[in-house]
């Protein structure tokens, strides 16, 4: 997408906030206008006083100085407050918007993205847009209106002065910012990318630290981080150096313009107006000096915008649009010649797969790992869409159901369940927020968690740590199973759900599940040949799907 397109998309998001932007522009104009008026009247006051007039002639100017002195401060306060209010409201809305766009893409379309990268987008890229909304949108409009005011003031003194000041204002308000934008564009993009890379490497370094240390690669990963860090800071330096250059040359331009103005004005205007002219000119640059650095960072802002918009645009969700809620008449499931491949150039994982599971059946599916057993679940809950054939639920194609309905009907214990960095209770309640204490405890008891909970000083309210790492693998699996049971769904699917449990616990849990789920469908996926006390109604052993 071109920079113009991104800018347009970013501007469109502002439309609901146009009132706030307009207020900020008007206030900005009045603030700088007050500042110019303050400097102008006080300079005039001193100059007039030097001519020893009667004090009555100065009265109006004295009132003016007081008024503009106070209004400048108050207006600036109001301007800053209103522009920041609007911007931060917008950023908040953007975060929610981005999550809403992201949510339907998971997990299929987000597979290629590192979660650190997504995090950078939702937090920091959106934050980077601050510069765009605060410094790129309203300030040029303020500068434009100040230019008009300056033209009127200087034109009133002498038309040729208006031409001179127009030249300098176009230079510092137009040409310099554009030059700054062009010089910062490329490096700004690189810096935004470098920050995302650094983020991912740091996150890999922290979450993958055990592997890195154990394989002696911590130092080399550290070296990689050092290189990326230095690269990132190097690009930032490039930006900062350009911005320093931009600031000092703008400051120089201010004085240059004053010298040229005086040069032109001295033979032409009344001497009493020289001091006001010089000071008003100095004051008006407040509207122009910040433009340079704002446009300098435009490259970064646009790159951040691009990272947000492109992710959303390039991926169409696999979810079907929300459809009318259909309640299936029964819960028979059948796969009919289903063909599925993960990518267009990959071999099919499912090739004309057929399977019928009548309502209420307890079925074991076993087979070697990696042949696509988990894929069956991903298709059932419509995380992925199959390419040919059809899956039927209660006599209707799966595609007719909204994904929400399907996920209400089916409880899944995935191979790698995610535990949130919250308490055990909160992790369980995820499945059914309205569950009572008794229901939560019953589910916990079913998976043998009650013993663990009893030994913990804070019981159910014990913090599980990030990714549940404060618990053992077995404890995490028990929580994941309890969570699925608590959901109380009509269909329960377990994907290698007991692999990290010892044999005794595994058998205990399975036995309890069997009686708990009597009359409801259970699909138990395992790579092992089922044995022991797990008595499924049927057992499907597959060599290939």
């Amino acid at each position: 997408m071109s920079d113009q397109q991104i800018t347009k998309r970013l501007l469109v998001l502002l439309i609901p906030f146009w009132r706030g932007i307009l207020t900020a522009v008007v206030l900005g104009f009045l603030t700088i206008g007050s500042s110019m008026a303050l400097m102008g009247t006080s300079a005039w006051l001193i100059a007039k006083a030097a001519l020893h007039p009667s004090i009555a002639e100065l009265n109006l100017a004295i009132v003016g100085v007081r008024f503009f002195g106070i209004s400048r401060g108050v207006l600036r306060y109001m301007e800053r407050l209103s522009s920041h209010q609007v911007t931060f409201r917008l950023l908040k809305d953007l975060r929610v918007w981005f999550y809403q766009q992201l949510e339907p893409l998971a997990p299929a379309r987000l597979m290629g993205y590192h979660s650190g990268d997504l995090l950078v987008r939702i937090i920091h890229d959106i934050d980077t847009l601050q510069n765009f909304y605060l410094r790129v949108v309203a300030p040029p409009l303020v500068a434009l209106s100040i230019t008009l005011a300056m033209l009127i003031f200087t034109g009133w003194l002498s038309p040729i002065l208006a031409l001179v000041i127009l030249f300098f204002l176009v230079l510092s308000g137009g040409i310099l910012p554009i030059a700054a934008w062009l010089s910062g564009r490329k490096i700004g993009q690189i810096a935004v990318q470098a920050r995302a890379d650094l983020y991912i490497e740091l996150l890999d370094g922290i979450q993958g630290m055990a592997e890195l240390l154990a394989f002696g690669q911590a130092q080399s990963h550290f070296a990689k981080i050092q290189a990326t860090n230095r690269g990132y800071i190097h690009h930032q330096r490039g930006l900062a150096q350009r911005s320093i250059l931009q600031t000092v040359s703008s400051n120089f331009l201010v004085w240059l313009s004053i010298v040229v103005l005086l040069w032109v004005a001295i033979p032409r205007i009344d001497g009493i107006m020289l001091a006001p002219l010089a000071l008003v000119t100095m004051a008006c640059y407040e509207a122009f000096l910040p433009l340079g650095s704002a446009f300098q960072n435009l490259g970064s802002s646009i790159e951040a915008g691009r990272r947000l918009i492109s992710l959303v645009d390039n991926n169409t969700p696999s979810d079907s649009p929300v459809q009318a809620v259909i309640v299936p008449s029964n819960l028979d499931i059948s796969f009919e010649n289903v063909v599925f491949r993960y990518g267009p150039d990959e071999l099919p994982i499912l090739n004309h797969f057929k399977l019928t599971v009548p309502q209420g059946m307890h079925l074991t599916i076993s087979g070697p790992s990696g042949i696509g057993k988990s894929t069956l679940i991903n298709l059932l809950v419509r995380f992925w869409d199959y390419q040919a054939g059809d899956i039927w639920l209660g006599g209707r194609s799966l595609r007719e159901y909204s994904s929400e309905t399907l996920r209400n009907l089916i409880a899944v214990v995935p191979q790698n369940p995610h535990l949130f960095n919250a308490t055990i209770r909160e992790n369980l309640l995820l499945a059914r927020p309205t569950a009572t204490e008794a229901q939560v405890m019953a589910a916990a008891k079913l998976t043998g968690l009650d013993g663990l909970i009893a030994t913990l000083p804070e019981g159910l309210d014990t913090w599980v740590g990030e990714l549940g790492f404060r618990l053992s693998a077995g404890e995490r699996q028990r929580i994941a199973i309890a969570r699925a049971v608590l959901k109380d769904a009509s269909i329960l699917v377990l994907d290698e759900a007991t692999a990290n449990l010892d044999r005794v616990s595994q058998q205990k849990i399975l036995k309890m599940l069997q009686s708990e789920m009597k009359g409801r469908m259970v699909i138990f996926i395992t790579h092992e040949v089922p044995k022991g006390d797990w008595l499924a109604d049927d057992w499907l052993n597959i060599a290939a799907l």
Partner: protein
Amino acid sequence: MKVDKRLFLELRPVRLWFVAAVSLGLINGLLVIGLAYTLTQIIDRVFLKDAALDEVQSPLAWLIGLAGLRLIVQWGSESSALHLTEHIKISLRERLFGHLLELGPVSLTQERSGELVNTLLEGVESLDNYFRQLIPQFFLMLLIPLSIFLIVVPQDPLSAIILICTAPLLPLFMILIGMWAGAVGQRQFKSLSYLSAHFLDVLQGLTTLKLFNRSQAQIKTIGRLSDDFRVTTMRVLRVAFLSALALELLTTLSIAIIAVEIGLRLLYGKMEFEQAFFILVIAPEFYQPLRNFGASFHAASAGNAAANRIFDLLETSPTIIDVPEPVPLPHPPFHIEFKGVSYFYPGREQPALNQLLFGIKPGQHIAIVGPSGAGKSTLVNLLLRFLEPTHGEILVNGVPLTTLAPEAWRSQLAWVSQKPYLFNTSILENIRLANPTATPDEIFWAGEQAGLTEFVQQLPQGWQTPIGERGTRLSGGQAQRVALARAFLKDTPLLIWDEATAHLDMHLEAQIQTAMQRLMQGRTVMMIAHRLHTIQHADEILVMSEGRIMESGTHDSLLNQQGLYYQLATTDE
């Protein structure tokens, strides 16, 4: 806001740059005074002394000359500040990550990685304001007003007195507001960190949220958290804006007093226009450094909160005690002894390991079994030196493990973890982790040994196929096989298998068993497994429960004891 003193120590290695930044900043301030003086001279001569353009040409040229000089000086001052800031940011970020490595993966599970990364990245970044602006401006705030005062005194003592009397009001006022702003800034940084940590958790758990139809409900939480962040940010800004307003009104008030005073004297002919105009132009410059400092002060308050967090992390004592002069690594084969080893996790009263006493002889294959929560993983963490024993010690060929360099020790062992972390690169690169200098052929061999070849050949890009973060593209069994391949590639005298076969099917397990037997030949092995049939041939089996070793012996002798092992074994068969 209490400025973290530890920040000043960071300036020590770059003090020359710092002196350059401040002294050039002072020269810049003096040049501004020179510019103002020249300007008032020109206007005075033209306005009151009827000078023609020709007569003021040389001061006009002076103005350009001074402005040009100022361009260079200001550039020098800001570039020096930039240089020292970069130096500090690079050094702090690297030291911080290096320190996290010393804290080790187990103690970091207490932290949220989203928050840690935020501290490493944005926390360090937010110190930018501190070093580039706040600290240099602090000195300029003292030096420039003082210079202006000294220049104004001979010109007009009365105005000089007014200036010096009003000056202390500003910092006093700022301190009051600053105390309030500090707390708010602290909250803002925490709010950002919390937001990061929560978003990371949600993003990584998005699939689980969807499975439970809870992902839509997160919109509300995300809206609420983002709004909290907005509100705290606005609160910081409001304080900043309000203090800027107060400063501005105070400045305006002082200038108004001066203006009235000089205006009246001018009116009654007691003062010259030249001086009066100069004082009017220079008076705002007197207050400007104070206002600049006030503005950066608020910008830096988030940096202060970050600095607290950074230095607190840096001062947390490392879990893995670095050995300054490590004992040279004993030569393999290794004889490992656990001598009364206990381990307590912080905050848990019961020991995870309780007085362990056992040995692993060179070449011995030892297996550890027991119900979940028995302490098997803690045992592995101790052996990997991710944790150090609370009591007791581990000896390697008679040398305490704590006296060896952790790196050197870990180079002698290969580890297949319960939940291998797969990096977001290709399968090839993920295996290469075990030995970066391995040739592709060696890596293919290791993959073949782990039973990966058949699967990899089906992938469009073969060994170069990128695997998603945490191996999202791979099934549990495949991820474990990558971990196994790493172990094959590393080829070390000591092997640790932590539930290595939990996700593999029978057919594959049989394949790997054969390869494993080959690999285990002549090596010391510690296996942790649930499949009892995989450990039947172990030289010794330790049966653990609640942090203790309950039974030990061979498969047959343990079966004869009819204890815990017998119980586990009979349910298994």
